[in-house]
Structure formats: C-alpha cells, structure tokens
C-alpha cells in the first residue's frame, strides 16, 4: 500500500542527497573524533601524570604535602593556563582539550588537578573574560604562565551554597577599598599569590552590591587559618582567609561597581566544567584500576573478572564513565563554539560527581580488602570523589541550576 502511494507520487521519496544539501552543516558538526592536537594534549597529560605524579601521590596525600615541584612542572608544560589566549601567555587550547587533560591528571591525582582547575577555569577564565587590559597584563600573564597561582574566594563561614549572603565587606574609600571579613574553604589559599575576592560594598542592594577584587596575597591585613585536615585531596591546601582592613586599589576592581556576584556565577559556570572533568577522571581512573585488578585477582579458581557479578559491575561502571565523558565533552564543545553551556555544564558536573562516588565505591568493592588500604589507590579515589559533589556548587545546587533552566520558560 505504501509503496503504491509513494509510486503514485503522493509523497515525494525521501531524498538523502537533497537533505544533505539543505543541512550539510548539521551532519558535519556531529563529529566524535578528536583532533591530532587534542590527542597530543591528552597524551602529554597522561605522560606527565604517570611520570611525575604517580610516584608520590600516596605519600603526599598521607602527609598533606603541597605538590610544589609538580605544579612547577605542570606550569612549564603550559597546563596552568592552557586555555588562555597566547596574547596573554596562555596555551590557547580549547575547552575540549582542557577536559581531556583534566581527566588524565585526575585519574592519578585530584589534588593536583584541583589546583590546575581553579587556576585555569575560575581565575584565568574570569580575568581574561572580564578583566581590563592593565589587569590582564599585570595579573593574568603570570598566572597563565603558571609562575603564580590563583585562588577564588567566594565561600564564607555562613555563605556557601547561598553565596548572595556575603558578609565580607568592601568599603569604598574613593581611590581604594577597605576589605574586612572571612573567607572559608579556599583552595590554594597558601600557595596562591593572586586572589579574586568577592565582597559586599552596598548591603542594601543585596547581591547587586557585591564587587570582585584582585587582591595580592601578601597585602597587609591578610592572615590564614590553619590548613584544613581534609578527607581527600589532602595534597592541595585549603584554608580560611581573614581580611582585616586590607587596602585594595580601585583599579583592582573587576568590572563595574556591583558586578561581583555576576562575575562569581559566570566564573563558576566555567569552573564547573573543570570539576566535572575532575570527577570524570577520578571515576575513569578507578574503573581502569578495577579492570586491571579483576583480571589479576583469583578467587574460586579463576580470575574474579570471570565471575559475572564482577564483570557486570565493570559494565555498569563503564557505561557511567562513558556517559559522564560525553556530558563533559558536550558542555565543553558548546563553550568552545560560543553557545550557552550553563545547563549542560551543571548536568555534566552533577552526573560526573555522582557517578564518581558510585564508581569509586564499586572499585573498592572489586578490590576487596586490598581496596580498603592505601597502596591500591582506590580508597583515595573514593575520598576524592566525595568532594566533587560538594565544591563549585553541591549536587543539590546543580539540580537547582538545571531545573531553573528548564522551568524558566
């Protein structure tokens, strides 16, 4: 019957050739192949992690030692400012490359990758996008070269998920501001030299009164709380930072008066991609270790991979990792192509962080008793995974971002 109708010409035959002519771009854009360059960056990150990080990652985690030399080498390779425009001494790479690099480094050492992530996608990104030329010249360049490390200071003892409740104040004194207050949980607080600080100037305007400043860490009036004794990522330094009458020149304010909250949110949008890729790397690192172990360890006369319960766990883990990777890359692709990526970025971060927790837990399970001791790495990956559900927006906050995006219209 259908054939008859078509033959009679009621419906024009579907002509793929014609379709291709109308939508050639749509077809061409759907491309899962990485470029030669992207692969080279992935391999460089992998080699670096194997060669420079794997050797002492367990020890640095145990002793909570900052990876000073490691970060220096990471900087020499250009990873600390890899997405910054070469005009400002960066690597000029795209976000897809950044995801690939973050995944590889996080497979081995998430403490190092969080330092890299904060510097790249929060601090350098924010400065490049919203800073003025003088600020970029003075502050972005050394950060992009990795000679200096950057920190992002938004959270406070009583302003975490609800970052609008900034208690840190920035009093306008004409040619300068005076900052007072306390920031909490600041990654790289001790090792960084350049701080991006959010502070309230006009409390009556609520979050529209917040400003963002570039503050040099050695400014008089800044002091640090003790190194936080963390569950995971212990090799990165996290501190609270106290500001007591800290004088900041007016030219160090980024953007117009009151731009701070918007800045903070925009930077987090980009930063989230870094943390999503970090979670992805933690998960894929755990998966790789679980696969390898399951092919070596024997129980009941055969490698445990031959027990279907284990093989199926591996299948489930692999599907989750692949999904997370695709979400991360899609969000990165949107960003690289100048398209909105807020919702997709949040989806990637939410999903990757949640599955990082699941996959690392299963990896410990597959390792049995060996999984519960430090030597086999997976217990550390499990501790690291937990943090990805908390910082740069908790999983609950990601759901708020995603649902608002969907329900708004």
């Amino acid at each position, binding site marked *: 019957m259908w054939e008859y109708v078509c033959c009679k010409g009621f419906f024009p035959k579907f002509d793929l050739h014609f379709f291709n002519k109308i939508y050639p771009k749509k077809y061409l854009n759907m491309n899962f192949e990485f470029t030669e360059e992207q692969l*080279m960056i992935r*391999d460089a990150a992998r080699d670096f992690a194997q*060669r420079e990080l794997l050797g002492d990652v367990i020890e640095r985690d145990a002793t909570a030692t900052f990876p000073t030399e490691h970060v220096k080498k990471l900087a020499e390779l*250009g*990873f600390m400012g890899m997405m910054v425009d*070469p005009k400002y001494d960066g690597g000029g790479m795209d976000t897809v490359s950044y995801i690939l690099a973050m995944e590889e480094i996080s497979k081995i050492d998430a403490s190092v990758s969080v330092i890299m992530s904060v510097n790249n996608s929060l601090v350098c990104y924010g400065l490049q996008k919203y800073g003025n030329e003088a600020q970029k010249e003075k502050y972005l360049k050394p950060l992009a070269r990795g000679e200096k490390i950057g920190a992002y200071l938004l959270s406070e003892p009583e302003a975490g998920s609800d970052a609008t409740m900034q208690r840190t104040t920035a009093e306008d004194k004409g040619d300068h501001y005076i900052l007072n207050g306390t920031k909490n949980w600041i990654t790289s607080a001790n090792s960084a030299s350049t701080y991006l600080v959010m502070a309230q100037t006009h409390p009556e305007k609520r979050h529209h009164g917040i400003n963002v400043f570039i503050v040099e860490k050695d400014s008089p009036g800044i002091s640090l709380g003790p190194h936080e004794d963390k569950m995971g990522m212990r090799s990165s330094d996290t501190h609270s930072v106290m500001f007591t009458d800290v004088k900041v020149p007016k030219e160090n304010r980024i953007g117009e008066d009151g731009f701070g909250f918007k800045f903070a949110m925009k930077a987090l949008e980009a930063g989230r991609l870094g943390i999503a890729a970090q979670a992805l790397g933690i998960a894929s690192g755990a998966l790789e270790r679980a696969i390898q172990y399951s092919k070596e360890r024997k129980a009941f006369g055969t490698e445990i991979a031959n027990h279907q319960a284990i093989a199926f766990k591996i299948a489930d883990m692999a599907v989750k990792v692949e999904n997370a990777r695709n979400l991360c890359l899609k969000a990165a692709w949107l960003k690289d192509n100048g398209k909105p990526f807020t919702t997709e970025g949040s989806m990637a971060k939410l999903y990757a962080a949640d599955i990082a927790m699941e996959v690392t837990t299963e990896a410990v399970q597959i390792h049995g008793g060996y999984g519960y001791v430090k030597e086999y790495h997976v217990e550390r990956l499990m501790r690291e995974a937990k943090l990805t559900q908390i910082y740069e927006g908790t999983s609950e906050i990601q759901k708020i971002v995603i649902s608002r995006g969907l329900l708004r219209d």
Partner: protein
Amino acid sequence: MKILTCISNVPDTTTKIRFVDDNKAFDKNGVQWIINPWDELALTRALELKEASGGAVEKISIITVGTKDAEPVMRKALAIGAEDAIRVDTEAKDAYYVAMQIAEAVKDGGYDMILTGIESSDYNGSSVGRMVAEFLEIPSVSSVSKIEMEGGNISLKREIDGGTEVLETQLPFVAIVQKGIALEPRIPNMRGIMMARKKPLTVVAPAEGEALTEFAGFELPEAKAACKMVDEDNVKELVNLLHTEAKVI
C-alpha cells in the same frame, strides 16, 4: 650545523599483536602509534645539543618513511622541538627500502649529523642506520650511548664488550644511538603543540626502487605457561616437576 633524526612510527609497546591476511600482515586496527622509543631519545639528545650549542646547531629536522598515518607521530616530534619534517610518502617496506628512501630524500639537505635509533621496536631490524650511511657514503658509528659537542668537535661514546670506546668523526656522519643517549623523552608543552601546527611538514614522493625482502608469514611466540608455585619444603615435588613437566633434568 644541521641535525636530522630518523623517526620510525611504531605501535605502542603495550599493543596486542594480531595478524591478518593469512598471517602475512600486521593488523593495524585499534593500534596506538608512538615515536619509536630510541628515536624519541635521539631527538631529545639532538634538542639538548642544540640548546647547549649557543646557536652552532641551527636546525633539527626529522624524516619518516611512511604513509599519512605516520603524521600524528611526526607532529609530536615537531611539538617536542624539531623545526621541520619530511615524510617520504610510501609504505616502509623493509630496511633496505627505508634506508634508500631516507638517503634519496636527504642527500642534498646538507645535514651534518644524522641520528637513527639502534632498532625500530616494531620489526627490530637494526639495519636502517648503517644502510643510510652506506647509501650516502658517509661514516657511521653504532651503539652510541653519548654524543658530546665542543666547539666544532663531536665526540661519541659507544659501548663495547668490557668497556667503552670514545670516537671522533668527521662530518657528516650517521650515529646509531642506544640506551644512555638521553635520560627521558620530553613531554610536549602547550606552546610546542601550538607551534607544531605551523611548522613545515613536507611530503615527498618516493624514489624509484624496490624492497629486497617479502614477508612469507608471521607467527606469534607460544604463550608462556603460568608460573607454578611449589611449597618450599616440598623439594621432591619440585624435582619431579622439573623432570616430568619441564624436562630439564
């Protein structure tokens, strides 16, 4: 001075080796390609020499005999620091053919030092270096573990039975390098990767000529038997196994 490094594009050392076409060809499906490890070290040493030479080494070039598939590996060599690259566009059929192609492509290039690895980790022929030197009618030194440059003088150290030999050579020459030539290959940095885009990679047509060998077939080595553990106080069992299973006593 100009240095040329010959780069062979080889399967990653962890590749699972399979054959197709009645065991007459290597199955390239899903293989990850790398710079032959010796060649990567040779390139590293070339870069070190250049950096220490205060301008005396003007340029480092690389050459690969191979199809377009070899280009990612060549780009990596450019990202690490080589200035330009030549690809002779043909299947690398055997050592003679490869050496002949290299010699033809570089004979007028004015290279003073040509580096090859001691062997290519795919077919382990250990022949290309010397053959290149023969084709070009220049000296070659094999098993070189150290290259030093002082002013215009080159000294080469090679391992020989029970000691080392130090040689000096005229230019141009071929050095066939081995372990010790450089400590660790370099990881390309972002700047290098970005610059590699713009560096010239010249594709030249192969010279006329034939390979001298043809592959009759490949065989995989027999799988190694699993290791058997014998209890330390069960010597009798050990002797028994050595006699009946391993058949060595």
